[in-house]
């Protein structure tokens, strides 16, 4: 690519400051708000409220506050969680955090791509959903298309995300909520039992504990705006506002839309066997507007692509900063004139394509892929544990550093917020190791050991890379044009 250049020493190219409050908030909303969560959570009936409250108190609020404090404190540094954790724990801590965030993406990409392809198939012809060639083709168009958008830098990708998240996440959520309100006020029967406070308390037993990890990470991605620090116009004032706006939008849309679905579809008929669109179809048929199903499928497909874009761009930018600082070989250290880490994006796209190929065409991988999804939960827990630990440590190691947004309450406040988040993700990590469903005792042992080894393998490479690191990695990178 002739327009590729290289990063200046110890930094990425100074990018244009194009992001304001709205764009930052939409990056987080794109990463977190997903229609496909609603039918899954609606299966829990009124209990979904209790689960959401747990996720909000233990994770969404702590991560939003931690992100706001760290992003404003370190607003002159690129790399998001890399910069935050590096400041607290040095290069190793930062590198492990960003690598876990990036490597878990590689495992997650095929599932979100398959979701995009199967949802679009619902709008075109449902039979396509079982056609491997169709699935793989659409997955690759979405994946490489999103990578291409990332190639053209923050200005293009933020516009894409702004419009996309409104079309693909917020409008469908509002439509579902509106129909739910209409349903509840039109005299139609609400299929949930009568409300009482006791109904919202989640059943916590050995069979539901693994679900805790899922609930916690329903709100994963609130740190995504932090990767765009260098492109933000007024980070000290814009970040906290963007965090607050995105958290409110995400919480309100998620809870209300889930309840709307739970009002209309009986729990025993709610299944994800034919995909989220089956629930959406039931919902719109019940509301006597079946013609809305296909357009809704298109909108939800757009929402999936936007979510993919948020997760594809953010961690890649973080890893680009790692490469620019000479912690990866020079071939990773390529930024184009738009400020995009093209080498990381390209390598990411190649690996993602390969994993998607295995996912679609290898039956054994296909059947057990959810185990790899469980691995992504463990990796994300490591990322967030490092973020919460950084939040606490920096209050001790850099107490006088300017913090335009400071979590109130002094040290007790920081321990309460950081501690609650840390305990939440540690607990999620532990229960995330517990298998659900049809596992024999022998399979359970293989599952737990395999999950731990897989998580270790996907998180440990930074330590090896730092051992292999050469001084020439920065210098060589600077020479390449």
């Amino acid at each position, binding site marked *: 690519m002739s327009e590729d250049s290289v990063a200046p020493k110890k930094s990425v190219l100074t990018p244009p400051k194009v992001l304001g409050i709205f764009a930052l908030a939409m990056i987080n909303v794109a990463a977190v708000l997903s229609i*496909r*969560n609603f039918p*899954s*959570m609606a*299966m*829990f009936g009124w209990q979904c409220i209790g689960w959401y409250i747990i996720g909000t108190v233990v994770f969404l609020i702590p991560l939003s506050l931690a992100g706001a404090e760290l992003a404003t404190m370190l607003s002159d540094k690129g790399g998001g969680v890399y910069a935050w954790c590096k400041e607290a724990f040095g290069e190793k801590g930062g590198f492990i955090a960003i690598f876990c965030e990036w*490597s878990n993406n590689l*495992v*997650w990409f095929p*599932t*979100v791509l*398959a*979701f995009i392809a*199967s949802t679009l198939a619902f709008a075109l012809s*449902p*039979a396509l*959903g*079982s*056609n491997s060639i169709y*699935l793989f083709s659409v997955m690759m168009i979405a994946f490489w298309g999103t990578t291409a958008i990332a190639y053209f830098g923050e200005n293009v990708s933020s516009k894409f995300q702004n419009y996309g998240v409104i079309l693909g996440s917020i409008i469908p959520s509002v439509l579902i909520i509106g129909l739910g309100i209409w349903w509840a006020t039109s005299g139609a029967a609400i299929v949930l039992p009568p409300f009482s406070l006791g109904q919202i308390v989640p059943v916590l*037993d050995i*069979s*539901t504990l693994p679900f805790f990890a*899922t*609930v916690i990470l329903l709100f*994963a991605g609130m740190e995504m705006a932090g990767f765009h620090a260098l492109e933000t116009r007024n980070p000290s004032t814009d970040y906290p506002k963007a965090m607050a706006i995105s958290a409110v939008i995400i919480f309100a849309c998620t809870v209300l839309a889930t309840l709307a679905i739970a009002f209309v579809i009986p729990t*025993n*008929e709610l*299944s*994800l*066997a*034919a995909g989220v669109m089956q629930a959406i179809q039931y919902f719109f048929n019940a509301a006597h507007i079946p013609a809305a199903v296909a357009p809704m499928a298109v909108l939800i497909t757009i929402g999936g692509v936007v979510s993919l874009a948020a997760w594809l761009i953010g961690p890649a930018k973080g890893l680009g900063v790692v490469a620019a600082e000479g912690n990866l*070989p*020079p*071939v990773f250290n390529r930024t184009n004139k738009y400020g995009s880490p093209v080498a990381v994006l390209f*390598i990411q796209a190649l*690996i993602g394509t390969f*994993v998607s190929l295995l996912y679609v065409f290898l*039956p*054994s*991988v*296909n059947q057990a892929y959810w*185990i*790899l*999804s469980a*691995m*992504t*939960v463990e990796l994300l827990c490591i990322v967030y544990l490092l973020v919460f630990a950084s939040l606490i440590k920096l209050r001790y190691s850099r107490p006088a550093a300017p913090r335009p947004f400071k979590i109130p309450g002094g040290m007790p406040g920081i321990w309460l917020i950081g501690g609650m988040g840390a305990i939440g993700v540690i607990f999620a990590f532990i229960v995330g190791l517990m298998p*659900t*469903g*049809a596992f*024999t005792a022998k*399979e359970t042992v293989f599952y737990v050991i*395999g999950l731990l*080894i*897989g998580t270790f*393998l*996907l998180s440990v490479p930074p330590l090896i890379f730092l051992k292999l690191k050469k001084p020439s*990695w920065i210098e060589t*990178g600077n020479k390449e044009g």
Partner: protein
Amino acid sequence: MNEVDTTTWTVFLILILVILLPIGWIMVVLPAEPYHVVQGEPLREAVENSGIHIVSAIDYNLPISGATGGKIYTISDINGNLFTIHTQSFDSVESRDAAIQLHNAQSAGRGKPVEDVMVVGNHIIYAKPHMSEIIRQVLPELQKKRA
């Protein structure tokens, strides 16, 4: 590209291996369930042989290509709690695996799907959340059908 030295290739190799090893482990430890036609209703038989009460069973056909019909069972545990399980049979290994793929794509958040899937020959059994205990009771009987 003079910077692409041995160390660089080592880094690439590590990146590829960290992805391939977990996938390879899955392929070895949990190979694909072989496709074979299991006659009758394997879940009903397994549930009844496990001493669990079936409250109701209604016909159910998934709107998926290759799906040939199934049931929605409502079962009751010893405490009287009711659970719902969907089953569906498929006419080919391709349609069955496509259905599994579709299910895997419906993950909640960044995790795995909230429903659990069991494969018994040409049948897929979809168990809702909260059912791990009851599934463990049924599992030994279901295993007999998988062979």
